[in-house]
């Protein structure tokens, strides 16, 4: 098995189980595309870290005299969604990859991501100040930031980028590969390295290899309060076929992706 660093996995864990004391809820999905809030706190525009999100929710609860300890998991999640607190897909990927790069001693993600399409100096300054808010799926997808890889070469930290999805084919989405688990006997013998991360003896994806990914999304049938960050898997049934021909634990995402204009596996240019 190969996976992201413990620090990056910790970020995922915190999104899946927001660090509230007493409750166990995943971070809801929130996309600022409709609300179009400008200049807001990043926790309120779908770009906050788990800590930002918990802090903001706590502050709002104190202001509105709501005691979190008396709320059930469902009520707390409803509270977050009603207050428009959540994370969008690219925000989630940004925070996880940022933690991954820092854990590997490669600095922060801001140093790696480039946005050559912005020419205005004021805009450039804003990007320096608010990098997460100025990062979307398009930023990760741009050729200056990432390159395409084959399914057989997929690794933790790779991105599954979906372009032109939705009814009008105007939505983009991004999934982050968190682990690649090989089921073949020889890979089961993989030895953890000094950081505790097990690396497979062969990086080739074979039959039965399981790709674990995480993303933040809201399906139409999720309703108003059942969406958010999830961790799902794709089991490789035939490595020679493309990603959409494999077995997804989330058939809805598979269908969503199938109807999109493009689906690519990409890796950051580090």
């Amino acid at each position, binding site marked *: 098995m190969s996976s992201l660093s413990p620090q990056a996995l910790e970020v995922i864990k915190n999104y899946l189980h927001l660090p509230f004391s007493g409750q166990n809820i995943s971070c809801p999905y929130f996309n600022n595309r409709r609300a179009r809030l400008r200049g807001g706190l*990043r926790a309120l525009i779908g770009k906050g870290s788990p800590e930002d999100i918990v802090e903001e929710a706590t502050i709002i609860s*104190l202001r509105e005299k709501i005691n979190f300890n008396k709320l059930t998991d469902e009520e707390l999640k409803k509270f977050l969604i009603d207050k428009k607190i959540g994370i969008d897909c690219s925000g989630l990927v940004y925070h996880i990859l940022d933690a991954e790069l820092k854990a590997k001693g490669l600095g922060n993600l801001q140093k790696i991501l480039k946005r050559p399409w912005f020419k205005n100096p004021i805009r450039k300054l804003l990007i320096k100040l608010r990098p997460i808010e100025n990062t979307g799926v398009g930023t990760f997808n741009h050729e200056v930031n990432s390159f395409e890889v084959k399914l057989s070469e997929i690794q933790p930290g790779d991105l599954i980028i979906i372009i032109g999805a939705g009814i009008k084919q105007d939505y983009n989405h991004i999934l982050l590969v968190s682990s690649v688990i090989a089921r073949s006997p020889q890979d089961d013998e993989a030895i953890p390295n000094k950081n505790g991360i097990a690396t497979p003896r062969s990086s080739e994806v074979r039959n039965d290899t399981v790709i674990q990914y995480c993303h933040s999304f809201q399906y139409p049938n999720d309703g108003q309060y059942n969406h958010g960050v999830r961790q799902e898997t794709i089991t490789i049934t035939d490595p020679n076929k493309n990603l959409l021909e494999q077995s997804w634990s989330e058939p809805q995402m598979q269908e969503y992706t199938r109807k999109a204009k493009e689906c690519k596996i990409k890796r950051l240019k580090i």
Partner: protein
Amino acid sequence: MNVPLETINELKTAISFGIFSCIIAFLWAPALTKILYKFKLTRQGEYDATLSIASKVGTPIMGGLLVIITVALVTILFNWERKFTWVPIGVMLLSALLGGIDDVMHVYGHERRNRKLKQIFTLIRVHSDWKYRVWLIITLPWSIFKRLALTLGSHPGKGVHVHEKLLLQFAAGAITAWWIYFKLGEHWQLINLPFDGLINIGWWIIPLIIFFVMFTANAVNVVDGMDGLVGGSLIITFSTLTILSWITGYHEITLLNATVAGALITYTYFNVKPARFQMGDVGSLGLGALLAINVIVINKMLLLPFFAFIFYLELVTVIIQIIGRYTLGRRIFKMAPLHHHFELKGWTEEKTVMRFWIAHGAVVLLGLWIALY
């Protein structure tokens, strides 16, 4: 060193004024409390209510009237002097009036309409009444100013909105500055550079007075919220100013500062936790403006950041928080003003208030030391 008897007598008079105003305030404080309850001028569940677990909803506001009225009465009756006490009392009453309107509107007002600029532009295009369309075009700059204030964090409540407050405070500051510059002579145009001496800044005094009056009034207003914090801090400041103005020979201002300190002692007695009443904007804006003017009149304008240390610090944290929010998208402090930050970090209200008093006292003392050079 032998201090002249006359000077000692001045100090004795000042102390007498302090004691007198303290007693006067104490005598009518119960009546004020009853009046505030009778007219239901109590704290509502406002948006910016303090975070303390013990809710302050139901506590009377406008307790600052105790200080404002006592100081105004004592000064008008016993210390009324055109050159020195007209302006401070005038500015204090003007600011207090503005604050009082705000306090009353918070209780008896209704939610104010806040149109977005997009809506205004749409109305300019489509409204059937051409006169209304012209009116919207004429008032467009005001609407933009209002929208900007709302965008920068002013919460649209029932009271006077921030953009209105700023405009009215500016007007109050400008009238005061005009009166000082054109009617009261050269003395008011002097400022003392620490370790250097007096310099005449001429007409520059006008914008500086406007700025310091507005900034200090709002700074004191921002700090009001925790039981005892504003009262205790102002006692330290006005007591120090009493000493400073006595040393520097401003007799009327010495008496005025002592009067304020005395009334504040009574106010704080009733305001410490659990508060019998809170200062409200009527007190905080009035006393903030008075503080600025009383420092300006003794030519120590540059030392205002010392004498109003805790107030300026808290207002600066609000400004930093807004800048952080818009530039970095994050909170620099857990909450602004600063006392809420510590409250969220788990400090009790008493601990926060007392530590702020101590920090303020230390910096005011430093200011006094510098002022003597």
